[in-house]
């Protein structure tokens, strides 16, 4: 069958066309990954420091629209509306920097968090001091910190990072927690303050709601309008410097696919995961199918005692429980996705052996093979010219059908072993991280959906190829 005729026949199958379209979409995603999602984010998938500014475990932006609510998006403010800088007279001679940022608040819910970051700060002998104040639309002021020192703890990160909710205590100074409480103290009833002891309070309610009794529980109406954040940094040593200042109003929704519990942008994982899935699936299936087809053909061709021996080896490998061994091997060798694919091929080559062997056995007995042998064709010639020629086209159908299995196994291994073996964000690994966070649908749905879609595209193509190329199904 010529190349042209093959395609003509292929396009007669709707499933083949559908599979091809899906595959093109996936290939576009995989190849265009650096354009769709930043490479830097992918490389920093395991670096918590990189994701520190993102809100943790929030749904995608379009989810707000689904819920019919106007939820605050993720806003990073880097350009202050006012910027000031002056030198204080001796004896201290401190340099003072002052910025004012503006935040228009008109949403149906307060943001997830407010973060203030002084980036790339270096300190000399005397630590820089920082003062942060929020001026609300009703002119009331909350002083988050009035005399904050860059503590030793944060010295190696070179960042002053202050989160108002203090939920990121591992990396952010929780000092601000008291500030919001002190502000609430002024307007709340004593009764409510006592009630709030030991309760989980959303500090954002205190900042973004009208001051009055009940604000600490979020019972007062939201205070819409323009909020001002005033930040002052005082530096004492002549060599002290910093790279920038930013205020982050962490969103209640984020990006195209939301974030996971560590604040990672799931869109990045999904897009780059397509590359990994295709690499694993294609390498695994191509290698195992080629080996399996070769093995089956040769075994059938050799026949006799050699065939018996090859068949016993096949049976042994086919009887080994693959998943536990693969997981164990993965745990020990900690392979890259490439090597993981090869590891799978080590066991998956058994898949096509039986079918191909019986196919080759049948072809071997055909009269034309006998005729070729009679006129003295060499064994190698018969194997390549007559047998492989017939079996090879069908190999492509087998390859396509093997891909879903390989991808599912890889996903399963990544799911179970997670961070211990695979450092890249494969879809299985993202699902493994999501295990236990059953309410975050934006985290659980997309990776599995993509696994299913990738497998489906290959099944559809394989189904069409099987119909066209499988000599046994030929009508």
């Amino acid at each position: 069958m010529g190349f042209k005729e093959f395609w003509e026949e292929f396009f007669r199958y709707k499933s083949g066309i559908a599979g091809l379209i899906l595959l093109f979409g996936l290939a576009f995603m995989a190849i265009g990954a650096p354009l769709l999602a930043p490479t830097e984010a992918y490389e920093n998938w395991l670096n918590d420091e990189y994701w520190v500014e993102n809100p943790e475990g929030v749904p995608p932006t379009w989810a707000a629209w689904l819920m019919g609510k106007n939820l605050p998006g993720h806003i990073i403010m880097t350009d202050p509306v006012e910027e000031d800088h002056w030198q204080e007279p001796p004896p201290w001679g401190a340099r003072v920097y002052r910025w004012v940022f503006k935040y228009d608040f008109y949403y149906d819910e307060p943001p997830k968090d407010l973060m203030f970051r002084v980036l790339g700060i270096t300190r000399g002998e005397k630590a820089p001091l920082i003062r942060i104040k929020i001026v609300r639309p009703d002119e009331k002021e909350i002083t988050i910190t009035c005399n904050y020192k860059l503590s030793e703890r944060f010295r190696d990160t070179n960042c002053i990072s202050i989160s108002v909710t203090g939920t990121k205590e591992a990396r952010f100074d929780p000092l601000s927690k008291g500030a919001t409480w002190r502000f609430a103290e002024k307007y709340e009833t004593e009764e409510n303050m006592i009630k709030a002891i030991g309760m989980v309070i959303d500090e954002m309610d205190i900042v973004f709601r009208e001051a009055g009794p009940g604000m600490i529980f979020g019972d007062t109406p939201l205070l819409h309008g323009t909020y001002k954040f005033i930040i002052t940094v005082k530096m004492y040593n002549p060599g002290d410097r910093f790279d920038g200042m930013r205020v982050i109003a962490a969103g209640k929704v984020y990006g195209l696919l939301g974030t996971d519990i560590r604040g990672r942008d799931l869109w990045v994982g999904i897009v780059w995961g397509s590359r990994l899935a295709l690499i694993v699936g294609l390498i695994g299936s191509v290698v195992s199918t080629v080996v399996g087809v070769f093995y089956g053909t040769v075994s059938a061709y050799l026949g006799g005692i050699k065939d018996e021996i090859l068949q016993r080896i096949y049976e042994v490998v086919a009887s080994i429980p693959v998943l536990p061994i693969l997981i164990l091997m993965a745990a020990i060798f900690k392979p890259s996705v490439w090597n993981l694919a090869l590891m799978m091929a080590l066991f998956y080559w058994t898949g096509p052996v039986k079918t191909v062997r019986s196919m080759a056995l049948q072809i071997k007995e055909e009269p034309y093979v006998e005729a070729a042998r009679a006129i003295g064709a060499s064994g190698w010639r018969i194997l390549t010219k007559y047998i492989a020629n017939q079996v090879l086209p069908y190999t492509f159908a087998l390859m396509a059908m093997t891909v879903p299995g390989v991808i599912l196994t890889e996903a399963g291994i990544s799911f179970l072993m997670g961070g211990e073996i695979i450092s890249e964000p494969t879809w299985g690994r993202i699902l493994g991280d999501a295990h236990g966070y059953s309410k975050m649908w934006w985290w659980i749905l997309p990776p599995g959906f993509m696994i299913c879609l990738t497998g489906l595209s290959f099944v559809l193509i394989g189904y069409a190829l099987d119909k066209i190329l499988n000599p046994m199904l030929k009508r």
Partner: protein
Amino acid sequence: MGYGRYVLFRLANMFVVLILVTVISAALFYAAGETFLWDLVMSHVNAEVSAYRQQYPTASEEEIRRFKQEREKFWMDYYGLTKPLWERVLITTWNLMTFNFGKALQLRTPGGSDKVIDLILDRLPNTILLFTVGDLITMAIGIYLGMKAAKNVGSLLDRAISTFAMVTYSLPMWWTGMLMIMVFSYYIPNPFNPYEGLFPSGGILSPEVPPDPFLRFLDFLWHLTLPVTTLVLVSFGGWAYATRNIVLGTLQQDFVMAARAKGLPERKVLYGHVLRASSPAIATSVILSVVGSLGGAMISETVFNWPGMGNLAWMAIANMDFPVLLGWMYVTTLIWLLTLIVIDLIYGLLDPRVKVGIAVKGT
């Protein structure tokens, strides 16, 4: 080749395969777990030495050193580290072949037994319950739909089944399980208890099990629902599609035409003749599927926190408990190979055309 010799040949063949699988697995596990076992020995010895120091505060360094050496030797012997790798592999293989599964390193049954065989026997019923129930429902639905699809080839139902089979072929069962848990244990509340989901998110019995056997049974069914539904959902499509193809193949045979020509009603042709002729192929798939599921589904059982065989294998790997893993592997492989032979032998007995060379392809 006579039937007797055929049986002998198959059995000998199985035996060789079983030995080789065991040797290869044992070698892999031991090679893999070498460092882990060393760490285990060191942690035992260190714990004992510090206990010794507390008990005999006056002991000299020399005495402590001697005690340490002695304990080291003891634990190395215990884990067989004093012997070379190949010897350990052969001993393990022999032990497994003689059904001497030994003791687990860390895992214990709820009753506290550390025997590998007890661990397996503790888990096996749970897996059998889950998968047998699931498989039975799957087959009933699958075979029924498959017959219907074969009867009306090209109909809407037929195309729907083919499509559904393709979709579920690439659907991870454990992910479907996660979705089921998300929907039925978190988003849909329980009408009787607002703090719970409609179905439990995992486990086999509630923490405070009702003592009444009937209530216990209900509680068990309540826990069984989600895993079984998941299993049925992802596998009945494939079953229907396979049945359809088998039945379709039979439908093209001459005896069907003869039956129809006799004027038999279509119902009778289909269920009396076609299904009967297709039943060996279907029965084979049924048996292989049930037996193949005895090893449990590692990931799905983990998702549902179902204390079955798959979960046992995962616990064994996570805790590097090699005796358990080897025992698990041996039992599942043995059952699997035995089943293959039994099917093969029955076929050989029923159909003299089937002899060596046509083994049954696993599902």
